[in-house]
């Protein structure tokens, strides 16, 4: 498909419109097994079991359970008899929430932006959008299927529809309890046309939604049978390992010892592609060994080291901004007339994703068609990557999306797909599994940007009258878009760089935020919670600095500034109760608090530490989340723990640095992780308000770093304005 849609010369005449509408609605049902589909998501088998198409990838956030829960609730079908399949890349499955960052109105036609997303189609799992996108729409999908089944039964029994009811996979005639299974009815039901959308169940009638239903994927994950991308095994396949250029932005122009490598045990071929040098072998180990032995002709393009990166970041903070993102009230006037001013400058490093499963993709090219097996957060991007890498028409690519051994925003990129496709093209008919070793994975990440921030507060009396906020970054989302989506975005227009810094809920007369884009050698991308991952550290550390200056308790001070935000206030009040904030802590224990809204949810966290000189024990974390309506409480709680540990690891140890234009860190020994012995006890409370659902995958991460550094300040008066803590000499016990 050439170019984009709007502005790409696409003629939206009547024929064109019909084509668009057809493509948006068309689904093939490939891979969903026997039986009859009632719509793009629900296929009923004669055995009276159901396969549900879940077009969102399972990376531990439970979507292979939570989305079927939404459908099953309305469909009236037992979850235990549901099988989940990731469908092909087709219009109905697009992530329409992402089109406008708004819930889709299921009663109206699609907006133009939504139509564009459905036409491409943009199928993406990310931005903590899955439930926000699916909550109404997937329930409607289940309800419509149920009504079609009831209509078919009513016709067969020659009764009115209201004489029937649906229950656990059967339509039952109320008068005499005779029943027909969905399996028996499906073929007839598929022909039924509904005149209007059926109403959805009220919350009080839910029997599945809101419960901690056990996850459908867990049994396979305790016996080794669950298949990740790296586990794909196809007869005749070969394994390929790539070595990227050692230097950022560098190139490899040749392999000096190619014949020696080709003669190494197990090696079947050597391929030099634009992105790196690749060994193809009969096992990953043979390929890995051979790749390590490459003598490469490399052209370095970068020589920057860490001191320079820091210098550039601080220099940019003093310069002219690229774009103003918030300008409420008159901040300069407020600052000029302030009784006092507080200023603080912060710096945060690049961070790696370090998914447990290194990047990989398996591709088989057969003439003008291809098959691809991989774990990826976007089947759209996978199709694009294979199409570009192997020159295959998008309609001739069959996708198999596996489980992901961690996503965190890294597996929504297509670098590994592109490389696998390029290599597979050179071995027609042979499935090629291209693998990044841990070292290649860590050195060729799309990192969370390195960021600096300057905060200035104007104090008037006992109040903060205004905040002036300046941030320097590289544009993470713009990077992802530029690489993967036909709609490009200028880095300064990337909203993610200032998200969580602008439009804060705290009452102030003036608030100003600007962004300066600084291009640096390392590639950047979306890291769990994206801009919030750094901006919450700035805003919640600074909020603490203000409350210290005013000599007001940090929890109490925040609550006092949230008069217009009852949901935020309620989260903090609950958090204070949960963490016993207002009680005296035992000797040797200190607490710090942070509150942050992201991806439609409000999260408050208190970190409780023990500190002995420079030895920190993070003993407990208290977490309160308001994510509106709850689909599966156990999944939400595990996601809060997950987000907290991810952010805590970064706060304690996380730092990706450069030396002479090369990334320094390459494996877990030099990129440390929180493990069992440094894991705090996390207590979570879910507010469970009857509001539209918010996201849950990312919101747990932003508050933990500032909650922790605020606790350290409470303990020893050391105000920490840069991370990781390990570089300030702290160790973790």
């Amino acid at each position: 498909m050439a170019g984009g849609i709007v502005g790409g010369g696409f003629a939206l005449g009547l024929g064109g419109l019909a084509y668009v509408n057809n493509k948006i609605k068309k689904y093939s049902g490939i891979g969903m097994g026997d039986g009859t589909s009632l719509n793009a998501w629900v296929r009923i088998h004669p055995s009276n079991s159901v396969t549900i198409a879940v077009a969102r990838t399972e990376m531990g956030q439970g979507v292979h359970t939570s989305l079927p829960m939404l459908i099953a609730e309305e469909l009236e079908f037992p979850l235990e008899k549901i099988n989940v399949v990731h469908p092909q890349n087709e219009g109905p499955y697009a992530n329409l929430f992402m089109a406008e960052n708004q819930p889709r109105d299921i009663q109206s036609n699609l907006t133009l932006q939504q139509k564009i997303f459905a036409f491409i189609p943009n199928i993406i799992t990310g931005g903590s959008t899955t439930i926000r996108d699916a909550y109404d729409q997937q329930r409607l999908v289940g309800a419509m299927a149920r009504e079609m089944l009831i209509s078919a039964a009513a016709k067969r029994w020659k009764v009115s529809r209201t004489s029937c009811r649906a229950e656990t996979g059967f339509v039952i005639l109320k008068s005499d309890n005779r029943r027909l299974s969905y399996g028996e009815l499906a073929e007839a039901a598929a022909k039924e046309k509904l005149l209007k959308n059926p109403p959805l169940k009220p919350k009080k009638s839910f029997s599945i939604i809101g419960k901690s239903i056990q996850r459908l994927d867990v049994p396979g994950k305790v016996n080794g049978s669950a298949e990740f991308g790296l586990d794909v095994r196809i007869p005749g396949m070969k394994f390929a390992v790539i070595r990227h250029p050692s230097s950022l932005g560098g190139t490899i122009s040749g392999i000096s010892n190619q014949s020696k490598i080709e003669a190494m045990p197990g090696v079947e071929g050597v391929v030099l592609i634009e992105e790196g040098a690749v060994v193809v072998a009969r096992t990953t180990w043979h390929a890995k060994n051979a790749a390590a032995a490459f003598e490469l002709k490399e052209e370095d393009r970068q020589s920057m080291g860490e001191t320079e990166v820091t210098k550039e970041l601080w220099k940019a903070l003093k310069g002219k901004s690229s774009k103003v993102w918030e300008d409420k009230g008159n901040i300069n006037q407020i600052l000029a007339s302030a009784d006092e001013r507080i200023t603080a400058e912060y710096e945060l490093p690049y961070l790696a994703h370090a998914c447990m499963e290194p990047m990989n993709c398996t591709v088989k090219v057969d003439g003008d068609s291809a098959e691809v097996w991989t774990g990826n957060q976007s089947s759209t991007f996978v199709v694009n990557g294979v199409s570009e890498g192997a020159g295959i028409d998008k309609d001739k690519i069959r996708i198999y999306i596996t489980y992901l051994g961690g996503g965190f925003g890294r597996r929504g990129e297509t670098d590994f797909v592109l490389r696998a496709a390029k290599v597979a093209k050179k071995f027609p008919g042979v499935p090629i599994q291209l693998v990044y070793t841990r070292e290649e994975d860590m050195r060729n990440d799309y990192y969370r940007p390195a960021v600096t921030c300057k905060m200035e507060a104007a104090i008037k009396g006992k109040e903060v009258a205004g905040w002036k906020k300046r941030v320097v970054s590289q544009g993470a989302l713009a990077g992802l878009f530029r690489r993967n989506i036909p709609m490009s975005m200028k880095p300064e227009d990337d909203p993610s760089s200032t998200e969580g810094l602008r439009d804060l809920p705290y009452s102030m007369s003036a608030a100003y935020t600007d962004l300066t884009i600084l291009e640096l050698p390392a590639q950047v991308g979306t890291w769990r919670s994206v801009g919030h991952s750094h901006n919450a550290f700035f805003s919640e550390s600074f909020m603490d600095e203000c409350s210290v200056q005013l000599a007001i308790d940090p929890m109490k001070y925040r609550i006092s500034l949230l008069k217009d935000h009852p949901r935020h206030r309620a989260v903090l009040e609950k958090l204070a109760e949960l963490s016993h904030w207002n009680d005296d802590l035992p000797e040797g224990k200190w607490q710090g608090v942070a509150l942050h809204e992201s991806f439609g949810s409000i999260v408050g966290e208190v970190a409780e530490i023990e500190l002995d000189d420079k030895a920190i024990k993070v003993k407990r974390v208290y977490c309160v989340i308001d994510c509106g309506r709850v689909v599966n409480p156990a999944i939400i709680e595990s996601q809060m723990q997950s987000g907290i540990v991810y952010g805590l690891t970064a706060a304690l140890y996380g730092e990706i640095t450069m030396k002479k234009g090369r990334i320094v860190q390459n494996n877990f020994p030099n990129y440390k992780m929180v493990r069992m012995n440094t894991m705090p006890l996390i207590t979570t409370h879910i507010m469970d308000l009857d509001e539209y659902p918010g996201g849950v995958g990312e919101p747990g991460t932003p508050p933990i770093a500032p909650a922790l550094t605020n606790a350290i300040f409470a303990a020893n008066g050391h105000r920490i304005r840069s991370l990781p803590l390990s570089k300030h000499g702290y160790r973790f016990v």
Partner: protein
Amino acid sequence: MVLKINGKQYTVEVEPTMPLLWVLRDVLNMTGTKYGCGVASCGACTVHIDGVATRTCVLPVAAVEGKEITTIEGLGSESVRSAVQQAWIDHQVPQCGYCQSGMIMAVESLLMTNPNPDDEAIDQSITNICRCGTYQRVRAAIKTAAKRLQADTVNS
């Protein structure tokens, strides 16, 4: 070379220096044991060698010839899960699940030598990395499995 894995014999033609991890994954297609780091730092590659939890990504296959190798696929059976596996389901431990084979193998081995581990013993023995942060549920599931195994021992 003949390897004894999960009670069966497998004949493989591989270099003696090939790490057991890759023999399992790429030669025998037993992909339950995972590759996470290749330097024995993360524990995703953990199996049992004569009942002892051992990382396999740098363990040459020649070193395990003649020994009893147990992988995640060899725990429990088709119809009956091990106590640890059942506890893992009851506590809904896994998230992405990639580290869990290695984690479970480490835990199984711990419980064989220390049937009632306290928190300190758990901290010291279970050093696997979990990027999804399931440690709290791992700890709870270990305690549940330990209790159940002890009850079985008492009852039998």
